[in-house]
């Protein structure tokens, strides 16, 4: 049954991509490539396919900017690195996924509108019905469906389980009312996955269901929020009597919390990648050259301190990556990376701002030979200790689950 469903999905995928590229990628069994062989393949792939103008973007890009890259990845069969091959993914081994991420980061590849690829796809592969997999997976691969996430609410941030958006059971469908917030790039999305309360009597984690909702459904309003980067990355999404077919319920009713949590797998390691801190330290170096700070003893000591912190972070990150490479499941101790990375990133950007003098107050990048944007970098570092579980929440997790401190 399951196998039949899988092959039919592959067939759908094949129908979508009639060009010979897809056939080529089907022939390509990535998992059989050695690590160095795969790394050079990725490098070649990026050099040949990645749009030069999108390298090292200063902010999170919209789908209108990244669409060309999304579609190219899709055509070439590279769009879903961690999905199994039978669902149209690359079927990479964990060690290859690590290489892919390393090379994308090194090349300065932009992050895509990847919620469908990173969240919905793996979720449906794990918990969805055959019908859901058939309906949604090929459209994620093709870029026809762009997803956003509806978890947080104005009164349910760190305490997410207290969420109040409700989905009332009306037989074959639900009626959804409520409000979601901090939905990244919801403006670009045509589908949203959300956590909604389906049982108000149950304990707070136990009355939540996981729903997939077409954003074109009547009663949905999206309002962008301008953040401190003067960017409209976040949105609010309002639901007013929105009808959602029960075909779009993932898993059992009232079991949505567990499903959402099961997604927090090794994706969490991304939040601890030293990339942001590395780039910021590069900016500090650029600033030092521009302002003649390399002979300044105070600057040198500060710079050395931050570089050494970065080297320690890279070494710690490497121990977790090694875990992933071996296919081990990460424990809650991975939270330490997120805390260390985001806080180091902020310490570096503090220094950038401090040593930039007046130029730290500029709204736009400073004119010069090398790209340099002290104020923008400082602002960009602010949300990293808040999103993806704030530093305070991460410390709670580490205190309880790793250090086993009492309640």
């Amino acid at each position, binding site marked *: 049954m399951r196998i039949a469903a899988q092959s039919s999905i592959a067939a759908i995928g094949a129908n979508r991509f009639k060009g010979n590229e897809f056939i080529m990628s089907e022939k390509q069994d990535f998992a059989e490539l050695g690590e160095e062989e795969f790394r050079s393949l990725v490098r070649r792939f990026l050099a040949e396919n990645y749009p030069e103008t999108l390298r090292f973007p200063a902010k999170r890009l919209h789908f209108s900017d990244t669409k060309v890259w999304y579609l190219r990845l899709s055509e070439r069969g590279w769009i879903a690195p961690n999905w199994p091959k039978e669902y149209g993914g690359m079927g990479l081994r964990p060690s290859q996924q690590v290489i892919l991420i390393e090379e994308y980061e090194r090349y300065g590849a932009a992050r895509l509108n990847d919620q469908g690829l990173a969240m919905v796809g793996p979720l449906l592969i794990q918990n969805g019905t055959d019908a859901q997999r058939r309906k949604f997976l090929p459209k994620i691969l093709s870029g026809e469906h762009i997803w956003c996430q509806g978890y947080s609410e104005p009164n349910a941030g760190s305490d997410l389980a207290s969420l109040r958006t409700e989905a009332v059971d009306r037989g074959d469908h639900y009626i959804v009312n409520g409000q979601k917030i901090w939905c990244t790039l919801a403006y670009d999305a045509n589908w949203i996955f959300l956590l909604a309360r389906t049982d108000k009597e149950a304990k707070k984690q136990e009355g939540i269901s996981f729903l997939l909702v077409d954003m074109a459904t009547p009663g949905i309003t999206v309002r962008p929020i301008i953040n401190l980067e003067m960017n409209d990355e976040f949105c609010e999404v309002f639901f007013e009597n929105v009808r959602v077919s029960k075909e779009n319920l993932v898993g059992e009713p009232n079991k949505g919390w567990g499903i959402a949590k099961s997604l927090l797998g090794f994706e969490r390691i991304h939040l601890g990648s030293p990339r942001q801190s590395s780039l910021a330290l590069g900016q500090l170096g650029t600033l030092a050259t521009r302002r003649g700070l390399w002979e300044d003893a105070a600057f*040198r*000591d500060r*710079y*050395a*301190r931050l*570089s*050494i*912190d970065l*080297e*320690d*972070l*890279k*070494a*710690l990150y*490497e*121990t*977790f990556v*090694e*875990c992933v490479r*071996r296919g*081990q499941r*990460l*424990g*809650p*101790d*991975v939270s*330490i990376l997120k*805390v*260390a990375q985001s806080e180091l990133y902020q310490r570096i950007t503090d220094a950038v701002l401090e040593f930039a003098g007046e130029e730290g107050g500029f709204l736009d990048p400073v004119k010069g030979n090398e790209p340099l944007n002290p104020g923008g970098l400082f602002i960009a570092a602010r949300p990293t200790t808040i999103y993806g579980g704030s530093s*305070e929440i991460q*410390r*709670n997790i*580490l*205190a*309880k*689950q*790793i*250090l*086993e*401190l*009492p*309640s």
Partner: protein
Amino acid sequence: MNISATLNDRAETLRSIRDSVGALVPKAGNLQRIRSLRFTEMGFEPASLELMGKMGWISLTLPEDAGGMGLGLSELCAVCQELGAGLVPEPLIQANLSASLLAHCGASSLADDVVAGKRLITTAWQANADTLEIPVGADARRRYVPLARGADGFLLPVSRDGRVDLIYCGKDVVGVEAVPTQDGGHYGELQADATSGELIGTDIAGVLAESLDRATLATAAYLVGVMEAAFSLTLEYLKSRKQFGRPIGSFQALQHRCVDLYARVALSRAGLESAAQTWDAGAERRMRQAVVSRAKASASDNAMFVTRQAIQLHGAIGFTDEYDAGLYLRKAMVLAGQFGSARYHRQRFLTEGVSVASAA
């Protein structure tokens, strides 16, 4: 604890080397022996140094054809980390430093005794504070020689005719003036006339610099061990100490600070291990110096941070000499500045490291 396997997952040899340290370090953090040796004449037990020799730790990094174990710096660091956790005062790092110089110079009769831990011969390389700079003149005063009163003899690097030679002086021809250190040991200041000693080797500047780097990294490892032990002592205390009718570790303000200590320990440990691996993988000289410097700077700073916080999180009991928290703090105070302070190593890292590190 539900820890991702890698955090504590090391190669099997490293594990067995670590386990072997149990021969000298009692389980459950019993520091009776360490306390009894504080502020004594020698500051350590010769029998324990001999045990270290028997275990092969002194010759761990010596090549096999020189009677050593032929192991790497990762292994030496693993031993030193465990010794640090047990606050073991026997000067393994000094003995290993001298053994590598003697082996290099082919001084096998002296080397055999040093490697066996039967004699302590300490290298008195330092003339100025907070530096790894050598050499010094034949008549220079040698300063900051750890546990000098327990040494049977000294190796004196001497700069002459544009090269560095190594001279051996027995303890009877060397005047030792000692100042006690916070950890219960002492530093000796030596009055020695190197011209009266025995010439052991010539042109040793390169091997001496390399040996000092190795000793520096081993000291960083010892400091990581110190912070690990101070952290677990503190963590246990937070779980057992009750105030306001509940364990103080249930308070969020303390939980978060405890996580900060945990993070510092994990970062320094990861940095140390990667530095040792880089060294063992045969990195070139400047890269080796850079990784040693970053590891020592990180270990010095973080050991001070963790042991200082250990006192604060214990409250008044932490300020008593009877309680062990202070022993870790005092050890960190001494070693943070030995073989170069964090400040010194940050400078050296920047001079040696940034160009190579950013090229990597």
